């Protein structure tokens, strides 16, 4: 997972590059929480453009980060959902909580 913080917009973007399962979320979770606490962003966006696989561990990951970001006053959003990722999110109802967004050209 790559991350980038945009100081001016207080925007933290996580670009997930690995397959998301119970194994990989452990590392993603640690890194995401560390960076959210470090940068104290107003907006946190998870970019799924490079995600080729995701199972229900991805739902747990996002709900957990949603709660953590909320606690620190940040808003959580997702972007570039692939078809298979979208299928899992739709099923879970998580998109009622976490909106889909698009990143400006300069950022994405």
């Amino acid at each position, binding site marked *: 997972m790559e991350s980038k913080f945009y100081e001016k917009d207080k925007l933290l973007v996580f670009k997930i590059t690995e397959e998301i399962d*119970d*194994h990989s979320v452990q590392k993603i979770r640690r890194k995401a929480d560390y960076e959210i606490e470090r940068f104290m962003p107003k907006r946190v966006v998870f970019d799924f453009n490079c995600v080729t*696989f995701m*199972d*229900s561990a991805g739902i747990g990951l996002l*709900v957990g980060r949603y709660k953590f970001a909320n606690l620190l006053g940040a808003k959580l959003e997702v972007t570039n959902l692939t078809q298979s990722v979208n299928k899992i999110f739709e*099923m879970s109802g998580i998109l009622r909580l976490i909106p889909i967004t698009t990143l400006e050209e300069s950022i994405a």
Partner: protein
Amino acid sequence: MEEHFENEMNLEFISKSANEAFARISVAAFASQLDPTIEELADIKTAVSEAVTNCIIHGYENEFGVVKIHAKLNQNKIIVEISDNGKGIENIQLAKEPLYTTKPNLERSGMGFTIMESFMDSVDIESIVGVGTKVTMSKKIKKEETNQEELSQMTSMP
């Protein structure tokens, strides 16, 4: 009547979460003999990943154990049995409920069985407390949709 299976495979590995990817990719490679669509293959991978994760986290509670996969191909259908000799499920009906999880502290979503049931045609769970759990799933690969155009595209691929 004795059933005749066109192909079968067995896989055994220890209950390490690093093996979740190995398991789903292996079953997908085996299933690819039925010429599934990318979406059907993704469905199988996801369902296998959920079942294997259950064995590791719930069956063995991250302790050492062996996860077994037995997969069969019969005409255009794949049948996958995934089993463990772990702690077993006390209440299968409850375990199948969407959002129900015994491990919310591990950020588990409680969607595992719901995903298996919606991505596969059938999901059967057998479990004995203290003995283990076996999940049997099947999915029919629909071939009709492959039209001539798609076929010629596939054959022209490098």
